[in-house]
C-alpha cells in the first residue's frame, strides 16, 4: 500500500471523527444536530470496520458489517426524525433543553 499510510492513520481518523461526533451530540441543543452527531459516531465505526478489514486480511467481513451499519443508521434516522417530528408537534420546538418535562 503506497504513501506509508498505515492502520494507525485510519484509527486516528476514526477517533477524530468519533470525537467530533461525540462533541456534536453533547453540545448540540438541536435534536437534529444530535442525530447528525450520532451519524458521525456510526461512520467512525465504519472507518474502523473497513480499516481492520483491509489490514486484517479478512475477505469482505468488514465491508458487509459497514453496509449493515449504514442500513441501521438509515433506520435510526427514520425513527429519530419521527421522534423529532413528534417532539415538534408537542413542544413547537426541537430544542431538547425545552423537553425536560420528564424530570423527577
Amino acid at each position, binding site marked *: 500500500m503506497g504513501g506509508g499510510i498505515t492502520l494507525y492513520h485510519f484509527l486516528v481518523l476514526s477517533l477524530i471523527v468519533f470525537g467530533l461526533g461525540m462533541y456534536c451530540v*453533547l453540545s448540540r441543543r438541536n435534536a437534529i444536530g*444530535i442525530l447528525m452527531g450520532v451519524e458521525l459516531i456510526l461512520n467512525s465505526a465504519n472507518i474502523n470496520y473497513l480499516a481492520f478489514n483491509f489490514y486484517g486480511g479478512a475477505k469482505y467481513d468488514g465491508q458487509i458489517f459497514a453496509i449493515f451499519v449504514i442500513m441501521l443508521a438509515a433506520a435510526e434516522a427514520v425513527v429519530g426524525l419521527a421522534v423529532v417530528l413528534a417532539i415538534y408537534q408537542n413542544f413547537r420546538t426541537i430544542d*431538547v433543553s425545552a423537553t425536560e418535562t*420528564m424530570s423527577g
Partner: protein
Amino acid sequence: MDHPIPVSFIRLIILLPLVGATINFLLGPWLQKNVGKVAINIVGCGAVIAAFAIAVSALVRMLHLVPDDRFMIDYLWPWMHIGGLDLDIAFWLDPLSMIMTLIITGVGGLIHIYSTGYMHDEDSYWRFFGWLNLFTFAMLTLVLGDNLWLMFVGWEGVGLCSFALIGFWYTTLANTTAGNKAFIVNRVGDLAFVMALYALFQGLGAIGHPTLVTREIAKYAPMLAGVHMPYFGWSVVGFSTLLMFIGATGKSAQIPLYVWLPDAMAGPTPVSALIHAATMVTAGIYMVARLNFLFSMAPATMTVIAVIGGLTALFAATIGLAQNDIKKVLAYSTVSQLGYMFAAVGVGAYAAGVFHLMTHAFFKACLFLGSGSVIHAMGGEQDMRKMGGLRHKMPITFITFLAATLAIAGVPPFAGFMSKDEIIWQAYAHGHVFVWLLLLAGAALTVFYMFRQVYMTFFGEFRGTHEQEHHLHESSMSYVLIVLGALSVVGGLGNIPEFIVSWKPFEEFLDPVFSSEVTRHVVESHIRSHSTEAIFALITFSLVVAGWYFADMMYRQQTMDPERFSSIGGGALYDLVLNKYYVDEIYDRAFVQPYLMATRALAWFDLHIIDGVVNFAAVVILFLSWLSGLFDHYVVDGLVNAASIITLDVGNRLRRLQTGSINGYLYGILAAVMLILLVRAVARAG
C-alpha cells in the same frame, strides 16, 4: 267401635264455620261496606245452619244403624308421626259427639240468628260474626277430633275465641281485663290438661301402646290398671284423670277456677249465651264423658269430681242469691248448673250429666237471650233493681223467660226437671249422700234466685227512668226465644225419670259410648227401687216449692222483707255473699299480688344485676378495645407508615437524578464509560 264406618261428610260440618270465619275476617269489612250487613248474615248464619242441616242428616243416618255400629270416622290427612306418636287429622262421630254437634250447631245457629238483631248497630259487625264462626269451628274440632291432641287444639281454640269475644268491646278497659282474666285462669287448667296427656301417653307407652287416639285409648285402657308413673308411684290413670279434671275446672268454671266466668259477662250477651252458657263451658263435662272408660277406672278422681261438682253447685247458687246484675245471676247460675253436670258424671251417671248439658243449653241460652232482650230494651241497663213490670211491655220475652226459669227450677214436666232431678237422684242412688245433700240445697237456692230474678225483672212497678220506660219494646228476635222456650219445655222428654215411664231413648242412644266394662260397673247404681226414686223426687220438689215460696213472698207479694235474712249475723253473711265470698280478693292477695311482686323483684334483679353484669362486661370490652386501638394505631400502623415514609423519602431524593435533560444523560453515560475504562486500565496496570 273397632270398625268405624268411614264417611266424608263430617269434615263439612267442621269446615263450613271455618269458611264462614275466613270470609268474614278477610272480606267482612268490604262486604259490610259495599253489600251490607245482610251479606255477613248470610255467610255467618248460613255456615252454621248448613252445618246443622248436615248434622241432622248425620243423625238420621246414625239412627238407621244398629246401636253398636254407630261410630263414624272421617279421615282427612296424616298430622304428625313422631316416634311412637301417630296422630291424624280425623274426625270421630259417635252418639256422644253427635249430641254435642247438634247442640253446638243447633243452639249455636239460633244464637247466631239472634245476634243479627242484637248486634245490628255494631260497627265491626263482621268481626263479631267472624269470631262467632271461628268459635263454632273450634268447638266442633274439640268435640269431633278423633285424638286428644286434636281435641286440645279445639280446647285452646275456644279459649282464644272466648278471650276475643269477652273483650269484643275492647275500648273499655274492664272488658279487656275480663278477657285477660278468662284467658289466664284457663291457662292454669290447660297446663294441667297437657300434663295429663303427657302422663297418659307415657303410661300407654309403658304398656307398649303409645297412642293419643281416643278409641285406641279406650281399647288399651283396661291394661293400664295397676300401671304406675315412674315417679312418686302414682297410678297413671288416677294421676292423668285428676289432671284432666283440673283442666276441666278451668274450662268449665268449677271450684277453684270458676272466677273467670262471671267476669266473662263483659262480652256481648249472645256470646254469654253461646260460649259461656251453652257450649264452651260444657267442654269439661264432654271431656269426662268422652273419656269415661278412664275416669271410671279412677274411683278417687270420680269422688273428687262429684264433690267438687256438688260444692260448686251449692257455692255458686249462694252467690247468685245476692247478685243484682241480671247477667251475673245467670253467670253464677251457669257455674252452679255446671256443678250439677260434674256431680252427675262424678257419681257415674254419665248419661244424666250429658242430658243436663243438653237441656241446660236450651234453657240457659233462652235465659241469656231473654236477658239480652231486656238489656236491649232497657238501653244497656243491667241492674235488676232498676227494672220491674216488664211483662206488660215484653210479653214474649216474659213467657219464654218464665218457661226457661221453670225448666232450670226443675218443675215438672219442664226439661230441667227431667235432667236435674235425675242427677240429684243418681247422686243418692250411687251412695254419695253428701253430694246429694249439696245438690238438694243447691236446687232450692236455684229456684229462689231464679224467681227472685223473674219477679224483680218482670213483676211489680217499673223502677227505671221515665225515658227508659218510654223506650221499652219487644225484641225483634223474639222468635228465637220462642224456639228456645219451646225446647226448654219439651227438651226433656227424651229422658223421663224411670219411675214415670221406662222409655229412655236418650240413654239408649248414648249407651254404646258408655259400654266399656268398667264404665258399666260404675254406671250401675246401688238402688233400683222406683218407689224410692219417686219419694226422692217428691223431696226435691217440695224444696223447689219452698224456694219458690220464699221468692214469691219477698219479691212478688213483698209481705216478707228480704232484710230479715240479709241482716242475719249483723249483715256480715249477706256482705260475704254479695261480695262473692271475697274469692276474687283472696286470689288477688294470694296469687296475683305475689306474682306481681315477684315480677317486680325480677325486674329489679334484671335491671340492676343482670344489666349491671352486662354493662360491666361492655365497659371491660370497651377498655380492652381502646388498648387494642392504641396498639393498632401506634405499633401496627406505625410500621406500615414508616415503610411508606422511607420509600417516599428515598424516592424523593432519587427522582432528582431524572432531569429530563438528554445532554445530562449523555454526559453521565460518557462519564460512566470513561470511569469503567479508567478502572480497567488501572486494574490492568496494577
